[in-house]
């Protein structure tokens, strides 16, 4: 058995996990499944691409690379700026759309509105950038042997390390910061949190910003390892939901673990049945989770 699928699976799992953290947080705090989350991923990737190109142009067109990586520091600066922008996009979308529907108290209407928003956001990317794929870099990398017959490219090693750092930072943030604790309180019991003096509006804002930023990280990872397309986020949506539900709605650890399981299963399935049915893997995992344990691995509620 060739273990190389592990390498692709781990990277896919990491980026699905990051996206799923955003899904699981917004699901547990805002209480609806946001179908526009995939578009945050795609917008994050395109925003990073545009900003990176602008920086490189301002420097006179010399892209350069960092060490063995296929990209230079302009990408790292661009991804931070893009994360802030997409966080702002998520907050803005909440202001014009979700906040108004939240006031009416119908969850499913919010799901439907997010579906409409997702169509509009995705098609605007297609309108601006057309559907032909883009790339952050054209560099070709040699994969390095890391043992057990597995080879990883420097990019893949860097991205998995980066994911681990983001996860640790998020975990500390949720555990220790005032905003993080308020977020957990609203997630567990919104009515009680409100009575206890938690500023729910601020928590909602923080949730959208975090969801947008993590989505950007996820989108850029996908852009570096595969490509940038208007449908990249939409195609990731089912794996994200599957990972979030498998891990247990509201659980960050669950989302990361769920992402890893989905990513590795997809990569393993490609080995066994070929790439054509890759997208069905997430669906099978989703159905299995709903049948066996709908609360997910770490879930407690309902």
């Amino acid at each position, binding site marked *: 058995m060739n273990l190389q699928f592990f390498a692709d699976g781990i990277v896919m799992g990491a980026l699905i996990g990051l996206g799923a953290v955003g899904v699981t947080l917004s699901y547990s705090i805002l209480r609806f499944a946001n*179908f526009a989350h995939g578009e945050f991923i795609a917008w994050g990737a395109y925003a990073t691409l545009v900003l990176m190109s602008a920086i490189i142009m301002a420097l006179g067109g010399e892209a350069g690379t960092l060490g063995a990586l296929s990209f230079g520091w302009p990408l790292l600066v661009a991804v931070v700026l893009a994360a802030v922008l997409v966080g702002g996009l998520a907050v803005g979308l909440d202001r014009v759309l979700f906040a108004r529907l939240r006031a009416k108290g119908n969850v499913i209407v919010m799901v439907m509105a997010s579906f*409409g928003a997702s169509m509009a956001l995705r098609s605007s990317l297609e*309108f601006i950038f057309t559907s032909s794929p883009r790339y952050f870099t054209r560099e070709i990398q040699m994969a390095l042997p890391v043992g057990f017959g597995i080879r990883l490219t420097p990019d893949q090693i860097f991205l998995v390390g980066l994911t681990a750092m983001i996860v640790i930072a998020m975990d500390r943030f949720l555990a220790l910061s005032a905003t993080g604790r308020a977020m957990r309180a609203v997630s567990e019991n919104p009515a009680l949190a409100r009575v206890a003096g938690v500023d729910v509006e601020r928590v909602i804002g923080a949730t959208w910003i975090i969801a947008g930023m993590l989505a950007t990280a996820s989108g850029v990872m996908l852009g570096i390892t595969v490509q940038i397309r208007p449908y990249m986020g939409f195609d990731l949506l089912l794996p994200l939901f599957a990972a979030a539900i498998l891990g247990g709605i509201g659980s960050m650890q669950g989302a990361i673990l769920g992402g890893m399981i989905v990513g590795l299963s997809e990569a393993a399935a490609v080995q066994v049945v070929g790439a*054509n049915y890759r997208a069905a893997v997430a669906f099978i995992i989703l159905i299995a989770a*709903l049948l066996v344990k709908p609360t997910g691995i770490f879930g407690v509620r309902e």
Partner: protein
Amino acid sequence: MTLDIIAYLAFFLVTALSYGIICLGLNVQWGQTGLFNVGVAGFVAIGAYTSALLTTPDAAPRLGGFDFPIWVGWIAALAISALAAAVIGAITLRLRADYLAITTFGVAITIQLVALNAEKATGGPFGIGFIPRPFAGLQEQPLLFNLANLMLVSGVAFIAYVALEKLIHGPWGRVLRAIREDEVAATSLGKNANVFRLQAFVLGSAIMGLAGAIQAHFIGFIAPENYLSAITFQVWAMLIIGGSGSNRGALLGAVVVWALWSMTGAALSIVIPAEYQARAAALQIVIIGVGLAAILVVRPRGLLGERRAPDSTAG
């Protein structure tokens, strides 16, 4: 000239009414029961492919091609879509309301994948051609052909409309609305909410499957790209604009939205040069997406919706 216009109008109405039938199915699920089905395209595709496989003439490289009469295909389309909905519904309807949305979304993606890759059965990306068309003998005369098909489709739409009106205004429909408005109260009166929800979901999906078969037979050709999520989205826009909860609204919304869609498509194709056509198509979806979201915020009742908009959902 006038005859051409009438022929086109008939063609337009056949398509619009076939969407109207899908909307009637969605109205049973969403309008009456509050079930959010994001996989409309999937159930339409199941119906279309089922009927196509059963009724096409024998084709060597492909499985199926049983050459059955059209009505057998239509009944099978109803049955297979109902069966798929029963399985999905049994798994998800007992859970949180939006798990149904996520699961049906997965259904649509998986069906699309099967249509694209199971070439032995579905023809893969090339789809299935030579699907027998009703009144095929009249094909040489577009006017008569379109009018005959219009009679057939409006007949089906009318039967579906009358039957659904009867069901919805009878005891069954009252239970559905009771569950939608106040599940605890309905349950305490001895109504098993999950059983009624499952019935509504299966009935709605069966109607969608039938409509898919009708469309497939009218056009005579199907391919996976006909069943992308854009269809789901259009049908939702039709029902929301027409007014969810109302069967007349469902049919009216289908005609209005399909007219708007065709006109903006035609207008964009005249105004925008050929090399930007793909972009124009994307812009069309942006406009409809924004429109749908705006209607949800500004006028959730739509044109002919129920007086009391659903403000709480089961689950």
